[in-house]
């Protein structure tokens, strides 16, 4: 074994006991090489010093200071609040669902008016579809970012309920949209809505 391999083994030794094969050749080299013996002693010393590195204590009262700095209510259970939220959720579904039906009704009347201009043409169908899509989805996308208003209206405490409600609202609107389109298809594409 040469001194370079020997040096590598010394560093390897800091990760744990050496394999038998490494150990034998290395011991032989050490007994013959003063330079490596000296280096091995230095590594040994470093290992011991690192292993004996003492634990350090923060100043007394550290725990107390941390406990004073955290918000003890952060993970507090809000069971009654949740129950109320669920009730509020249904009320809101009712209000929003009703309102969206009204809007759809208004949209349908608007279409009847439009119909007189583009009656029966393919362009009409395309425009009517885009119109419904934009109006109905538009309401949803307008409401989406209004969380501040929403919070003010409901004073809800969980973010989750916001997404649950918006998800439900989205579903209601998609269903209404499907109904409107079905109505038109059932009307035989003659442009008669409802």
């Amino acid at each position: 074994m040469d001194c370079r391999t020997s040096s590598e083994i010394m560093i390897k030794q800091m990760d744990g006991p050496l394999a038998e094969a490494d150990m034998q050749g290395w011991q032989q080299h050490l007994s013959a090489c003063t330079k490596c013996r000296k280096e091995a002693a230095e590594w040994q010393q470093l290992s011991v010093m690192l292993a004996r590195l003492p634990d350090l204590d923060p100043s007394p009262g550290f725990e107390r200071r941390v406990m004073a700095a955290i918000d003890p209510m952060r993970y507090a259970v809000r069971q009654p609040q949740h129950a109320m939220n669920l009730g509020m959720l249904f009320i809101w579904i009712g209000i929003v669902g009703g309102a969206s039906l009204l809007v759809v009704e208004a949209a349908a009347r608007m279409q009847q008016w439009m119909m007189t201009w583009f009656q029966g043409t393919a362009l009409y169908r395309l425009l009517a579809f885009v119109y419904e899509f934009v109006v109905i989805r538009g309401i949803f996308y307008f409401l989406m970012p209004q969380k501040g208003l929403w919070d003010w209206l409901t004073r809800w405490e969980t973010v989750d309920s916001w997404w649950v409600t918006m998800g439900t609202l989205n579903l209601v609107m998609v269903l209404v949209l499907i109904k409107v389109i079905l109505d038109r298809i059932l009307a035989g594409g003659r442009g008669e809505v409802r």
Partner: protein
Amino acid sequence: MQLTDAQLVTKILRGDPTGFQELVSRYQKPVFGICYRMMRQREEAEDLSQEVFIKAYRYLGQYNHEHKFSSWILKIATNTCIDAIRKKRVDTLPLDEEIKTNQEDVSAERAFLQEEAHREIEAAIGSLPPDYRIVVLLYHHQGQSYQQIADQLEIPMSMVKNRLFRARKMLKESLKKLKEETLWTAEQVQKS
């Protein structure tokens, strides 16, 4: 019966913050040890350690039970210290403060020798660049594996090995230099 770390976390997440005090008590030494040895300034280390626990509490919901809590909190400590050092834009911090330890239960002579040895190794560790210092502390003092350190620092394992390899060489060299300086000073004192 003592609760495990994971049980304490569950307890806190169910709304009982007292469980957190136990976690602070279990991990204040390793966290403070990392902060103090990284910052080499007691007051700053205390502030940072406090920040580490506040962060841990705030993000406790994100703690993944598949990992050890000790690894998770050390990761927060590591990142907090490295961020703090980057903000200061100081590479190697001066040894303006000696890290002091309690050595009350050993004889005076042994205490002196130990104190001397501790002073030397602390100085050597303090002279390492922060990226190398953290690897040495996590591996040799906190007993983290290469894989755990790679996860904590978010670097590949080969880089952890490489840094540790170089850091050990640097440590050995600076210990040697410290020894020579001490001998030289001793000789000068004897001559005069």
